[in-house]
């Protein structure tokens, strides 16, 4: 029996092949080695902890009113002070933060998914599909998102209808990403592995979902992260003017709107929530940037 060279080599090395390191691990390693990634991830984790565990250590809930303390500065019983109504700013802020984080994350996920599907279909199928989808993308780019969301705000005005708000928010965040995805899908469809799949008779929709979109995953992950901050900022602006999250629910936007009215003589009503918003968005942006570098094999170490 004759052995080919490779088999011989395999035999000599006791059958143990050197394993290629998994891509996820390489990327995670690079991400956590960068200063930006470390800081961003730590701060973001802290913010989540604060938003979801922080309320447990407070004796006030966000609906409580302390009628012995109106517009009081921070003290040991009210850590961030109180509002004119006697509501505890700490409890309100954390509640608003929960809502903003959840809305931001969900909207980013939905919008990135939408961008991936629309962009990949337009780029892979070309022709009429491409023309129609690109036209819709351009149309939504022409209409300022804030305007449409504000017009539609009476429709998702009721309490407990914020999921609808999330979907509407997502509908206006996906366009630019989808243009990038389309461009990349156009070049991907000429690659050998896609052609092979096509000639083997894999249905086109399956090719898009199994081969095209997974190959754009690094772009999509980075983009989803950056969309989180975009979604949080848009949500804040809309809620600020009363077009987003409606009372009695609170979010960063509604709190900042209320706080800005009393900020000159009661700074604690404005600066805590504004500061937390800025720190959260900053952390998300840092994570996004570090992820982009981690995914990019050409990036400078």
């Amino acid at each position, binding site marked *: 029996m004759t052995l080919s060279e490779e088999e011989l080599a395999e035999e000599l090395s006791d059958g143990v092949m050197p394993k290629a390191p998994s891509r996820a691990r390489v990327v995670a390693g690079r991400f956590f080695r960068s200063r930006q990634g470390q800081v961003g991830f730590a701060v973001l984790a802290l913010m989540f902890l604060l938003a979801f565990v922080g309320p447990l250590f407070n004796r006030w809930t966000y609906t409580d009113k302390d009628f012995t303390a109106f517009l009081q500065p921070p003290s040991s019983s009210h850590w961030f002070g109180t509002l004119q109504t006697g509501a505890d700013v700490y409890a309100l802020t954390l509640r608003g933060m929960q809502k903003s984080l959840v809305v931001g994350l969900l909207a980013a996920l939905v919008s990135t998914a939408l961008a991936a599907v629309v962009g990949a279909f337009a780029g892979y199928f070309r022709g009429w599909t491409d023309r129609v989808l690109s036209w819709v993308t351009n149309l939504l780019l022409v209409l300022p998102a804030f305007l449409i969301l504000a017009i539609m705000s009476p429709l998702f005005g009721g309490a407990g209808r914020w999921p609808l708000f999330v979907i509407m928010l997502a509908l206006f965040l996906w366009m630019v990403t989808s243009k990038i995805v389309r461009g990349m899908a156009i070049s991907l469809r000429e690659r050998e592995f896609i052609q092979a799949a096509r000639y083997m008779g894999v249905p086109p929709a399956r090719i898009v979902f199994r081969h095209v979109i997974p190959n754009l995953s690094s772009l999509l992950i980075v983009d989803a992260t950056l969309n989180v901050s975009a979604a949080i900022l848009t949500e804040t602006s809309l809620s600020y003017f009363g*077009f987003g999250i409606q009372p009695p629910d609170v979010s960063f936007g509604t709190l900042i709107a209320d706080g800005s009215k009393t900020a000159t003589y009661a700074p604690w009503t404005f600066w805590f929530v504004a500061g937390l918003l800025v720190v959260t968005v900053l952390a998300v942006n840092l994570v996004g940037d570090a992820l982009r570098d981690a995914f990019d094999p050409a990036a400078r170490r």
Partner: protein
Amino acid sequence: MAGFLVRRLLDYAVLVAVAASLAYLLAATALDPRSNYAGRTPKPPPAVVDAQLTALNLNDNTPLLQRYATWAAGVLRGDFGKSVTGAPVNEDLKRRMGVTFRLVVLGAVCGSLLGVLAGALAAVRQYGWFDRLSTGLSFAALAVPVVVLANILILLAVWANEHVFGRQVLLVSGEYSDGLDAGFWGQVVDRLQHLILPTISLSIGLIAVFSRYQRNMMLDVLGADFLRTALAKGLSRRKALLKHALRTALIPVVTYFAFMFGALLMGATFTEKIFGWHGLGEQLINSIFTNDVNTVAAISFLAAVAVLCASLAADLLHAALDPRVRA
């Protein structure tokens, strides 16, 4: 080039028509002008309300498509209908357009020029102190939404007026002081005092975005062969950087400007509302609260036109900068 322009213009006209129609249909479905009359005391009889709404083309008992047809016919004649109070929308918006135009143009010019300059400077001295500083600042600026930034500016201005200047130097409300009698130069100074803060609030975000983008583009160009050639044939460093590097790196940034314009309009809306400028953005927010369908639709139309004008301007600038496009 001419054919290209005509095709673009046709494309844009269709997009504007569809966008405005969509905005009208959405506004007519989502907003409810009838509820404006519900809170009045004494309650007006339903027949009167109906007649009033029909006169304004806002009656929700009329089929949506019929209302749309009436509105569209009016728009084609250049008439955007009447607001909920019965005043013609055209007059109101004509007055407000100038206010918004001043703010947006100043913000866009300040933002893009300073941003491009900062980005180019940062790239030329990569990892120098200016590069680090501008990177840090732009990261921070991108995390502050306009609504927060405007409020922080107001708080800072109030504090500075009190503790630094000792008098009202930075004015935070309105476009000019009412009934000010200070001669021509007094008026100019007064307007400038009102203008400073809104312009800062509008342009900081743009500066941050443009400086990041310009820096990355510039870095790509600085490593390119044609720049080395330009230097090797004896061009001075300044000339090579200005004529070859900056110009080439500007091309993608100009295209990016069209994308940014929608965000700029949004920022102008918030800035106007918070600083109390009586422009289109402020009116948009007010008219949604007063269920003013016709005004909302008219402002949407103007916004779509503005976005497309910006994108057309970007195309033209692109052609001016890049000879390959002109060919």
